């Protein structure tokens, strides 16, 4: 599952993942929710692969991996992780509107709480790495790199999928972002 806030670039991540899996010969289904959730709302993409995939959605306790682009979203979708699954969390926080207007506080200690649930957690400061690669907008590619490390697909498959998905003039920057995420 790839979860985040509308505008963070989660769709590109799901494109690259889907492309990589298809290349490896799996049947793949990717489910996105377009529309209202884009306006700074919670965005979820499900990616399912196997010999033959039926349902395109992932339910509670079914995800092998959750790639969370933002802390609160990691907490929101944690229950969808298999108890022995892995959750990769970008430590970035984006205030939801109830916090922005001051009617509630952004929850503290999310990473610790997620670890305490028993999940296998990898917390990453993807924003800093993206800036290091060249731009804050490459956060999604850094996270794809981190996810690639945790999956059994060959690295070349990812590089190929990435190369086919980004504009050529930004390829070098994106490859650098990918490597930074991959090598954490």
């Amino acid at each position, binding site marked *: 599952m790839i979860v985040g806030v509308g505008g963070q670039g989660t769709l590109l991540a799901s494109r690259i993942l889907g492309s990589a899996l298809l290349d490896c010969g799996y049947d793949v289904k990717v489910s996105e929710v377009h529309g209202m959730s884009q306006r700074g709302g919670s965005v979820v993409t499900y990616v399912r692969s196997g010999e033959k995939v039926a349902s395109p*959605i992932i339910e509670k306790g079914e995800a092998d991996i959750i790639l969370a682009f933002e802390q609160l979203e990691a907490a929101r979708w944690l229950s969808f992780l298999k108890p022995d699954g892995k959750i990769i969390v970008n430590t970035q926080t984006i205030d939801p509107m109830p916090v922005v207007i001051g009617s509630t506080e952004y929850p503290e200690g999310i990473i610790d709480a997620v670890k305490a649930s028993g999940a296998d957690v990898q917390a990453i400061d993807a924003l800093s790495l993206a800036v290091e690669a060249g731009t804050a907008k490459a956060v999604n590619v850094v996270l794809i790199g981190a996810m690639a490390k945790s999956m059994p697909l060959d690295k070349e498959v990812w590089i190929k999928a990435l190369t086919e998905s980004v504009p050529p003039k930004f390829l070098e920057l994106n490859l650098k972002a990918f490597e930074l995420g991959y090598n954490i």
Partner: protein
Amino acid sequence: MKLLLGNEAVARGLYEAGCRVVSSYPGTPSTEVTEFAAKYDEIASEWAPNEKVAMEVAYGASVAGARAFCAMKHVGLNVAADPLFTASYTGVNAGMVILVADDPGMHSSQNEQDSRHYAMASKIMMLEPSDSAECLDYAKRAFDLSEKFDTPVILRVTTRVAHSRSVAELTERVDNGLKEYVKNPQKYVMMPANAKGKHVVVEQRILDQIAYCEKEAVADGLNKVEFNSKKIGIISSGITYEYAKEALGENASYLKLGCVYPLPVELIKNFAAECEKVYVIEELDDFIETHCRKNGIEVIGKEAFTLQGEYSQSMIAKVILGEEKEFLSTDVNIVPRPPVLCAGCPHRGLFYSLKQLGVTVTGDIGCYTLGALAPLGSIDTVLCMGASVSSLHGRNLADPSNAKKSVAVIGDSTFMHSGITGLVNIAYNATDSVVIILDNSITGMTGHQHNPTTGYNIKGEPALAVDLEALAKAVGINNVIVVDPYNLAETKNGIKQALEADGPAVVISRRPCALLKSVKHNPPLKVNPDKCKSCKMCMKIGCPAISMKDGKAHIDFTQCLGCNVCSQLCKFDAIE
């Protein structure tokens, strides 16, 4: 083999089937079908002002001999229902296919109506694909079936099919040219004398289609029977077939209906007879279940499954197998993250001004619907496309003193869709109504499509644009005031002026959508912490870029587009 979005696969199917004309109105989750269709040079594609026009365009093209198509969301079919019902009587010339996208769970809609009822009510064949490969395949079949049975055919998708990507195979386009148009008033002119004869044809057509569904459709692979364990039999269609397969696998046998109207009888009876317990699993209404019961077939349906919302594999596993998965949890306070107006959105200043004026606001469908949420909280009603204008007139008729303290708010695309007739009514039937048109030069909420006010067509080529000021005057309304919603004082005064004027008035709140690539922004603003008095006035507009950090206002530089609306609220000049 490619991973295609369901909607993209439908467009590909249209292309391969030789479709030549596509006319639609945007509507989540159907919009992408037309966006992808527009990429093919062989298809004349367009955004029509509304779905009724779109369907009539497709109908006209079909009668002229070109395979034609229109797409819409479920509430859009409400708008196009008029041509739908009578096109069923006339039939078609070249194939005519209509896509309707339902939204169980209301991800992006104001209701979750079940469009299968339209198929039955209009007596029009309806196909329902389960994945992208079927979206492509059924789109092509739909044209063939349309010509075979002389009827429009409806292709129904739901959000999960339309917006999921799965594997599909592409093949070549086959275009057999235009069919000859032959004048035939008895077929095409639906005056009562002709219509009477056509209804007889329609009823026979349904019998012929049922016969097709019993046998040929099975041989064709449209309706599928799959026997595994016969302890459980599942009758389903569309995405629920996939959920059932995921939950039950080979622990059940399946009757998958690719055609959901008309429904076969013998096929279902024979399937049910082979299985111990038969469930009908369908999202939304008991459409298939009712058909089964009517034909004496014993099934378990809505007594076990809900009428509301989306289904899933875990729901089916719980109901049928009594199984639930384990999952992790924390006691973190999961704060909701509702969608909001983007930072820099021109609607923000407009709604803040309305809030200051304390008026009642009849609202409409678009990004600006979000003006109803806190802290702006400035919309009282939202019903359907165009209702803001017409219902304001109703409000002012009920009590004329309302006219001085009520306004309608409608976007440019929505106004083109069905606001104009409401405005004509205001002028012709004389209430002192104030209609505010939010002109942000785009159809925004559905993902930035052009419309008759933007000056560009679906391909981004220059097009004639409707002049809103001239339109208001042509309707007979001379009080036309244009304001810039980035300027709070100008906006508030403009609306006040409109309310105080004699007679109806139109206020045009004009400023392009902040996300448009053509818009140049100012650099992000910053709060000077030395000047900030923590009064939180800047927070009252609910901009996602502004929050309180360490007791002072703080602007997120990655979100701020420098619109300067917040700085107009700061009495201490702390925002620079």
